[in-house]
């Protein structure tokens, strides 16, 4: 019993298959390959089989011709060019939206220099820590001179002691 014909593209239906149904599938398969055929992406053998089918099948040939003319027309569409004022309008829009600050190099570009900020914060922190460490009070408050006692601790009382009572 003969197997399916694998030399044609797409393979011919097996003998005994519903001729009408198989034929419709075949045309559908052919249509599926229109793009690849048009762009020359089919392998040689498949391309030759496709060409042979198109040559012998009026419906597929007409379908392919319509397909080809549609795709070709797309590539032949006139290339639209931007209006002459386009460039200046874009620039004006940018300037207006950015308040004139859009162009021109910035010191750090547009990004925040987080690395630099981190180093500055670290240095300031270290300086504060050193100051606190060197402070005898453990704080940054101004340290007053210690108050002098009103009289020397060893001095005799200024107020005279009362004389002992005589018996």
């Amino acid at each position, binding site marked *: 019993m003969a197997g399916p014909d694998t030399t044609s593209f797409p393979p011919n239906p097996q003998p005994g298959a519903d001729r009408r149904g198989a034929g419709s599938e075949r045309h559908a398969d052919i249509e599926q390959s229109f*793009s690849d055929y048009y762009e020359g992406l089919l392998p040689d053998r498949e391309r030759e089989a496709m060409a042979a089918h198109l040559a012998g099948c009026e419906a597929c040939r007409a379908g392919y011709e319509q*397909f080809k003319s549609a795709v070709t027309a797309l590539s032949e569409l006139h290339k639209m060019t931007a209006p002459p004022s386009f460039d200046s309008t874009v620039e004006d*829009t940018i300037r207006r939206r950015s308040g004139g600050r859009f162009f021109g190099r910035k010191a750090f570009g547009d990004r925040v220099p987080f690395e630099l900020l981190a180093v500055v914060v670290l240095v300031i922190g270290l300086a504060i820590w050193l100051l606190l460490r060197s402070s005898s009070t453990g704080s940054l408050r101004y340290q007053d001179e210690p108050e002098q006692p009103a009289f020397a601790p060893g001095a005799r009382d200024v107020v005279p002691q009362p004389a002992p009572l005589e018996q």
Partner: protein
Amino acid sequence: MTLRERRFIRKLRERDEKAFRDMVERYRDQVYNTTYRMLGNREEAEDLAQEVFITVFKSIDSFRGESKFSTWLYRITVNHCKNRIKYLARRHDRDQREYDENVTRDGAEAALTAPARPRSPDRQLEGVEMEQILQRCIAELDDDHRILIVLRDIQDLSYEEIGTITSLPEGTVKSRLHRGRMALRKKMQKYM
């Protein structure tokens, strides 16, 4: 990415005014043609093309250089187009009558002012009609099909580039494009 392109990108990142001007001059027609074919309206296309360049300049720092600059630019263009199409659909801003007038006017202008190939008056008329029919058929396509048809058949980009722009696998691009072309063929049959 070539050394020249790297230098060009660096200048754009530095907000170099001249580099920006060069960039706009170099890519404006590609971007405009894409937005026009996607939207089918001259004013909308111009407005959107401007937004594309403003976006490029704002977000140039996010361009990692993994693809060509033009591919990145197309990606921005396509995203803008998708958003604008949705917006216009929501606003019901694409009034068919207005659209027809625009297509007729723009198509006629475009075909009559085409400098590339001088045509006889008969051929010019044919060109005008064809432009109008095609633009109308493109506008009737699904967004996904329209994008691929514009990128491949009008802008002549490679499948690889289209895959990068749309974030679709190459096989999906091919099969979807084919369905789009078949849909276009069907729509054109109505007018032919």
